[in-house]
């Protein structure tokens, strides 16, 4: 028996989400007294794979088949299922991101496993296997029990964090035997977001709402985000107006995020928005209306003009950075 994680790569590189999965699975596997194994699909150099061993995972199964770069849901689910059978995985952990959400349900059916998504942190107990899970889009949590012998979970990003624990690096080639007929997704066009921090991966997120008044006013907000190495986000009206892309919308019908630090500029804090960001560790709100509901969810607030506050924040962050 074992704990298996699927560590996704982006053009051959891992992101923080994979290191968080490794940290999490190493901790869980230790408590369950089981080995932990990572599966990597698609071309990744050994030097990159070895980074997983800094977070407690030594045993890495790798398959360099380029066809996995099509992110074909059915082929990836099949490959993880084959790996899971090979190592007799009783717990399979994926990231709660676009790919994890797409593949985990297929995998659960294949493995006759119960599945719980958006798991927060370590299980409460291992027998019965009980985890904390977000419900009502961040407005509450439940304690969910998985009864089946094999269990599949997706881990909410930033809900556990990174735990450095250097172990030996032992990669092993893994053959899937998948044929061309197993890959059905044909890619016609790819638009990569380059030079920006992914929202789900971001430690800090800088977000703007209707109070920004126009899509043309995002310059200072982006400048602050760049200085902080932060991702940028927005509230629903902003993406509905087309000021920013839908992919930046955080809230009930957009993305659910949980960064260490969330800046809300000109966001009033409708209940649907708060659901999407309430698991953030620290929330900073700037809004001209002192009675805006965002201040009930925030840790630090300024009741004032975002366009007067942003330049001061930018200057202060530059000072903080230059002072080390």
């Amino acid at each position: 028996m074992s704990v298996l994680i699927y560590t996704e790569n982006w053009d051959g590189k891992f992101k923080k989400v994979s290191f968080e999965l490794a940290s999490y699975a190493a901790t869980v596997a230790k408590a369950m007294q089981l080995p932990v194994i990572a599966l990597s699909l698609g071309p990744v150099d050994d030097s990159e794979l070895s980074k997983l061993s800094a977070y407690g995972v030594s045993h890495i199964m790798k398959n360099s088949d380029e066809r996995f770069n099509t992110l074909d849901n059915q082929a990836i689910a099949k490959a993880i299922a084959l790996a899971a059978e090979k190592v007799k995985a009783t717990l399979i952990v994926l990231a709660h991101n676009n790919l994890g959400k797409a593949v985990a349900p297929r995998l659960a059916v294949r493995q006759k496993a119960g599945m719980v998504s958006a798991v927060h942190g370590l299980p409460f107990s291992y027998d019965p296997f009980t985890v904390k899970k977000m419900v009502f889009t961040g407005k509450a949590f439940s304690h969910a029990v998985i009864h089946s012998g094999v269990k599949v979970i997706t881990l909410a990003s930033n809900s556990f964090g990174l735990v450095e624990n250097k172990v030996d690096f032992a990669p092993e080639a893994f053959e899937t035997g998948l044929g061309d007929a197993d890959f059905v997704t044909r890619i016609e066009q790819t638009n990569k977001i380059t030079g920006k921090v992914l929202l789900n991966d971001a430690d800090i997120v800088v977000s703007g709402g209707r109070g920004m008044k126009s899509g043309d006013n995002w310059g200072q907000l982006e400048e602050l985000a760049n200085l902080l190495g932060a991702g940028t986000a927005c509230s629903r009206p902003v993406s509905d107006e087309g000021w920013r892309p839908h992919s930046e919308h955080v809230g009930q019908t957009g993305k659910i995020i949980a960064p260490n630090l969330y800046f809300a500029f000109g966001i009033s804090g409708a209940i649907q928005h708060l659901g999407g960001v309430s698991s953030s560790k620290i929330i900073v709100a700037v809004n001209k209306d002192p009675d805006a509901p965002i201040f009930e969810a925030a840790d630090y607030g300024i009741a004032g003009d975002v366009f007067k506050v942003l330049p001061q924040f930018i200057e202060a962050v530059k000072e903080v950075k230059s002072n080390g």
Partner: protein
Amino acid sequence: MKILILIGNVPDTTTKVKFNADRTAFDASGVQWIINPWDELALTRAMELKETSGGAVEAVVVANVGRAETEATLRKALAIGADKAIRIDADPKEAGYVASQLATIAAGYDLIMAGIEAADYNGNAVGGMLAEMLGMNSVSAVSGIQIENGQLKINREIDGGSQVVGLPMPLVAIVQKGIAKEPRIPAMRGIMMARSKPLEVVQPIDAAPMTNMVTFEMPPAKAACKMIAEDQAKDLIHLLRDEAKVL
């Protein structure tokens, strides 16, 4: 082409979430029920496809797993324009259970659309599970669907960007925001017509739930927000570094 839309019956998104006294179940008293927002967008897009496809889309059917009280939600889907509704008469216990029920009625469709999650228990699972059970292809985080020369052209969000992809039918498309601009509001004529459209009730099959939610908790209460004056904004950045230690 026949399209099936999976419909969830969920509390209105503005609902203040409450649980019963021992926190073992959601307190549904006074709650307004709606079509799960992503499912409503999927249905809206299906209607647009039907209207613009020049007859290529023959039928749009909606289905849910729920008791009789969820029929109001299905009637709303019919009022938006679906041709027929199917209700599987069971409590939607968990994703695997719901997908097992839907698998009994979902064969024979060329395109099945499911919302990427449900606004109540956020399972993110029914669409993908159903696809695997039926041996269908699936694609997730779909933010656009077009029909071109009888083939589906799909926009999907990936971690770190977006793609245009093609997949053969039959296909389960798990859809998110962007699939339709905004949900369609039923017109009076649609509401009248919905009354006479077929709503078929199907008996459930035995399926053992593999997960259950034993208890609920609210997020920890926040301490009062520390307010800083507008002209002292720089102090806030120093507090983030020195007090909150997040910079």
